[in-house]
């Protein structure tokens, strides 16, 4: 599939933003919200910026963005529609959470409740995003049991790494937080490797014989209907990823998982200070960059069934 930058940015940024939002909401519910006012509000602000930026970027992918409001109508059948509604609905408790925190100065009582609702909205929205891909029958790499847990895991992982960086910078961090972020990063790495192993053996869900209705033997494409690339080849026949697959996977693993995990362990083991702050910030930046490569591969490596007609 063609890896559109708008969609890569959308899934990566909203994933990290919703992860961060959900963690802040859950911490407030558990009475463990960051004590200071500004780290909490800065975290919430960052989450909302990531979410809003991601959603706006996804609108950039549309042919007619001015009609985007129509996408809220088909929630009964469409995961994309559900995602849109859930994303907009989540802004309400998230806004109340931030406003209450700002006005009352603490994340307790109804403010914590709003935080919990925002966390729920965040999880639902990430699930909807994942299901947009996980429900597409023609793409075996997406319609797999790895897709939905993967999206949730990478959102939680990048959200936690961001939260750790934020709290380390404000002096509210700690070894537990950094350690948890390292553990989640390693879990994400294991999940990614397992997904790739699955993807590499997942063939197309149909054969060229059933696609053409010609049973038995071999069916070879000897002439295409067009001499230049058409929409199908541009959108569904993307092949660059296959050429650079191994190198890109190494880059994604290093930036997204290995380097952040090492940095986070370093942050957890060193006493609070410049090293902890630097390692935590670097881990967050590195992981986001790695996830962008990971997401590029998620799109670019996916093979669409229609390519059976083109012998690709």
């Amino acid at each position, binding site marked *: *599939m063609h890896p559109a930058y708008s969609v890569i940015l959308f899934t990566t940024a909203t994933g990290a933003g919703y992860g961060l939002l959900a963690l802040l909401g859950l911490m407030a519910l558990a009475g463990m919200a960051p004590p200071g006012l500004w780290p909490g509000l800065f975290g919430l602000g960052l989450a909302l910026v990531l979410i809003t930026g991601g959603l706006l970027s996804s609108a950039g*992918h*549309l*042919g*007619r*963005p001015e*009609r*985007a409001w*129509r*996408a*809220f*109508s*088909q929630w*009964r*059948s*469409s*995961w*994309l*529609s559900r995602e*849109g509604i859930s994303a907009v609905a989540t802004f309400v408790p998230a806004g109340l959470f931030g406003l209450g925190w700002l006005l009352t100065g603490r994340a307790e009582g109804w403010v914590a409740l709003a935080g919990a609702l925002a966390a729920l909205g965040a999880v639902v929205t990430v699930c909807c995003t994942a299901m*947009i891909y996980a*429900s*597409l*029958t*023609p*793409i075996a790499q997406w319609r797999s049991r790895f897709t939905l847990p993967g999206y949730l895991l990478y959102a939680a992982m990048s959200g936690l790494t961001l939260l750790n960086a934020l709290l380390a910078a404000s002096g509210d961090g700690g070894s537990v937080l950094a350690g948890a972020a390292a553990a989640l990063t390693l879990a994400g790495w294991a999940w990614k490797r397992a997904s790739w192993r699955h993807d590499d053996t997942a063939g197309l*869900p*149909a054969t*060229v014989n*059933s*696609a*053409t*209705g*010609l*049973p*038995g*033997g*071999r*069916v*070879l*494409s*000897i*002439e*295409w*209907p*067009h*001499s*230049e*690339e*058409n*929409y*199908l080849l*541009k*959108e*569904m026949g993307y092949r660059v990823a296959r050429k650079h697959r191994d190198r890109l996977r190494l880059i994604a693993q290093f930036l997204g998982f290995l380097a952040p995990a090492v940095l986070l362990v370093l942050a957890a083991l060193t006493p609070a200070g410049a090293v902890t702050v630097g390692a935590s910030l670097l881990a967050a930046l590195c992981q986001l960059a790695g996830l962008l490569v990971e997401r590029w591969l998620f799109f670019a490596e996916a093979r*669409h*069934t*229609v390519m059976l*007609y*083109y012998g690709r």
Partner: protein
Amino acid sequence: MTCFPASTDKSLGLVIDLDTCVGCQACVTSCKEWNTGGHMAPLTDVKPYGGGVDGVWFNRVHTFEHITQEGGRTVHFPRSCLHCAEPACVTVCPTGASYKRASDGIVLVDEEKCIGCKLCSWACPYGAREFDVEIGVMKKCTLCVDRIYNEHIPPEDRVPACVSACPTGARHFGDLGDPASPISRLVEERGGVPLMPELGYEPTNRYLPPRARSERAPTVAAAPLEDAAPEGGFLGWVDRMLSR
């Protein structure tokens, strides 16, 4: 609502005969010609006269080589929307722009509602949908809704443009939901098949497989043609005499 109807009064569709299709592209051009002024108009072409030409077409003809134990055979294969009974292209649509009609089962796009998210084209395994980059909306075969019910054209022309253009009669149109319709009987007789039934889209269109090889082909070869540069015989003598 983009949930599709559980059942439709009719199941209008096409039956394509892979035995007789000669890959002449007449259906392709007549489809483009009719539809670029029809319901989904225009069928935009980008850079039509230079390199990198691209454009929207509802019907494309591929050519395959089918190699079995009996030998190889060239098969021309027209590909257009199959007007599926379980169209995921419709359910994924967030706006309700993609819909399936309860009356005749035709799957259409409402261009006024489409936001151009392209998700429906990802959901179609048959590659039936093409994005119009200039208008920013998705387009697809309409089963020529603006011909088949059109009272301004003579009744015999009220069939899809691709069907009426086909010089070998390889394309048939009718109600595949009615087992007694001529087109359903043709499918029955010729063992017509749905494409990729394992994906569960329940396509309406059927493809008639090429007929079995005939044993009636001539067994005696024709007499060989006369040698163009004869070495012997009368012509050889003439040739030698005149070449002196």
